[in-house]
């Protein structure tokens, strides 16, 4: 397979970036998209050029470290799929593929295709936990949790924190990410004592980090590799209204 890559190159956070074009041969349909970038990088090294920096680690869709814009879509052409799970069989021989970093004010570019998503960590720090010290737990089966509740909690707990929801949202909102975590814990009995603090702390931090607000375009749920539904955002908002009204 032969592909023309148009890739965003940017030396650092404070430098100007631009697209560079690379024609590359010798790809196969079985290659993953990131393996195609590896292939390109090997060619660049041999030519004495700097490699294209991109984030990735597990390469199996679970760590959430990968994520770029491919032909204008977060994680590429398919719904619910991470960049690392994308394979070259999704492209045509001879095609031009445009690759750029996630664009969002809260995710500044670090280099080339790598962005800084530490804003997500800071949202988590504002309450995505249960305050209980190691070694203080009661017998696990002392808390009975109906299967449906555990399943619903798991549905949203599955978020991989990749940031595709933010990148694809025209408002760069982090509502899907934040709601998923809040709902994971607030649905469970263990999460109740801190439910209110968690809700307020995490949503406030969203604003502090300069994420936009959600206008329910539902673009995020289409890209979400963990298939988290925007009903999660509605649920968070309902919890928020309830909390504001009833304390």
């Amino acid at each position: 397979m032969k592909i023309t890559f148009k890739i965003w190159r940017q030396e650092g956070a404070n430098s100007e970036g631009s697209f560079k074009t690379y024609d590359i041969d010798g790809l196969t349909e079985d290659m993953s998209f990131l393996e195609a970038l590896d292939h390109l990088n090997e060619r660049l090294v041999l030519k004495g050029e700097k490699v294209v920096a991109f984030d990735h680690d597990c390469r199996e869709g679970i760590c959430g470290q990968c994520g770029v814009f491919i032909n204008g879509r977060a994680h590429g052409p398919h719904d619910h799929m991470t960049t690392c799970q994308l394979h070259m069989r999704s492209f045509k021989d001879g095609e031009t593929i445009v690759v750029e970093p996630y664009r969002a004010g809260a995710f500044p570019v670090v280099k080339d295709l790598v962005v800084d998503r530490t804003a997500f960590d800071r949202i988590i720090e504002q309450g995505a936990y249960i305050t209980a010290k190691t070694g203080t737990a009661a017998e696990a089966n002392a808390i009975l949790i109906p299967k449906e509740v555990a399943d619903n909690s798991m549905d949203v707990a599955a978020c991989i924190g990749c940031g595709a929801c933010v990148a694809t949202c025209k408002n760069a909102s982090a509502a899907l990410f934040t709601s998923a975590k809040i709902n994971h814990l607030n649905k469970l009995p263990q999460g109740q004592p801190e439910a209110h603090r968690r809700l307020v702390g995490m949503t406030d931090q969203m604003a502090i980090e300069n994420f936009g607000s959600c206008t329910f375009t539902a673009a995020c749920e289409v890209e979400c590799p963990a298939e988290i539904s925007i009903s999660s955002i509605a649920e968070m908002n309902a919890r928020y209204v309830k909390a504001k009204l009833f304390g």
Partner: protein
Amino acid sequence: MTLDSKIPAGRLEDKWTSYQAKSHLINPANKKKLNILVVGSGLAGAGAAATLAELGYQVQCFCYQDSPRRAHSVAAQGGINAAKNYQHDGDSVWRMFYDTLKGGDFRSREANTYRLAELSAPLIDHFVQQGVPFAREYGGVLANRSFGGVQVQRTFYARGQTGQQLLLAAYSQLSKMIRAKKVAMFARHEVLDIVVIQGKAKGVIARDLATGEIKRFAADAVVLATGGYSRVFRLSTLAIGCNGSAIWKAHKRGAYFAAPSFTQIHPTALPQTSESQSKLTLMSESLRNDGRIWVPKKKDDNRQAKDIPEEERDYYLERRYPSFGNLAPRDIASRAAKERIDAGYGVGQLKNAVYLDFKHAINKLGKDVIQDKYGNLFSMYEKITGINAYEEPMKISPAAHFSMGGLWVDYELMTSIPGLYAIGECNYSDHGANRLGANSLLQTSIDGYFILPNTINNYLEGELKETRPDVNHPEFVKVEDEVKSQIGKILAINGHRTTDDFHRELGKVMWQECAMSRNKKGLEKAILQIKEIKDAFWKEVKVTGHDNEMNPELEKALRLADFIELAILMCTDALERNESCGAHFREEYQTEDGEAMRNDEDYKYVSVWEYDAGDFKLHKEVLEFEYVQPTVRSYK
């Protein structure tokens, strides 16, 4: 130095309790003065960092990813074991201890293994408290399933994302302590060397991966929690960044390395399809609960799976191991697959796979039940291969997966360098020569949450009266210079081969000679080949870019330089052990029907290697079995 495992006296059942009762305590005011570095934010590292911070220590934690939430623990699918006996199927701490010891082919310490089983139940309590959405029964109690190598159901799980949910719980707790300013987190930082002052670990040198800056960190103790090193094979189920650098550098600074060649090859990964492949994706072993493994009875059978009638299928695990069948332990299942593939019965494009078939389970239980249990695994399979496994069997193949070997540690999880600890997959502790499925999430978690926070006081108490370590100490300057000069050297070579090219070459040698089956001739040849690779690497590698910027190519090269050296030690270790045990199968030592022949008379020890100026010196930690008599490990 003599090897003191520091196993407490007393009955097996009482050892850990009496250890805790007698170990030193440090008062809260003094804990605040002590600083601990935790290298790694996986289940072991995050659990340790959060718990140590809760206890009052000042902690600095490192990971190479952009967030601690991405450590490779996140990828564990199947589950975590605990001797809760919720199924009332005869499980107990004793049985779990025995299964683990036997599963490891009697190459681990009784006391460690017993403690693993003993702490498993409280660990589940802990994770439930932290909000892990484990699978539940309709009545609201926790659900279980079984995993390879055991006959009870003791595995707890959260769909096919157990590791993710446990890691996120640990990350949450870590985040809580970051917010409380008790942990300083250094993401995108890679530890490149350990600083040892007057025989004690006092700090690390790390590279800020975003800027390239080299930094010094001083502390009263250093904890390595850097995970497994199976990327030495290049193709593995591990994440691309997983490395052996921190433990290798520690080894070169004096920490002993135990059983480096004990690596687990997982039987159910997706087969390699091309040269350019960068990783092998695991299909959870839990699939073997309901999937049946087979190959055609006829060689080079080119028919589609669905066209091969029942009587022409060879369910070889059920045939060879009737009592465990498809749930035979990993080493055995992998070797059995290799045997069939090598004999010409493999399936798939490259004839390097076997079938994992759900037809019978779907017929019996219905598609809904299978979907509920394994839905995300089936969809992952389809994303990667384009094949719907509800309709036709999966194709699977063995892949490098886990390192039982690692830094030697005593009962307190301290390495042979005082003040340097190793926890989680990077140590050699409980799994012996083969790890049982779902025992690793357990081991990494209890190391970090329960054991280390109890044992580290014993050492730190003695450090209180010492002066606090200082990054301006000449040893820090020296080690930093060494790190910088290694980086400079790699960048200056400017050869004509890429790092990946060398890594592919190394991986092939290791897969061929030091994976599922090994022999003297092959290992001797491999050692020579790897030495050649090493020479060539240092003359011909080409790394572009600079040291003072984000440079992924440089990161790769530094990791590979360490893997190459580690690979030599792995082969040396495999060569020394003239027996077959667990994952270590030496072709010279097998029974007539191809089963492993262990030799307790001569090899009932853990091989512990000391680095000696480019060479390796063997020490033996002889294993005493007081409570269990090692038997032939049969799963027939």
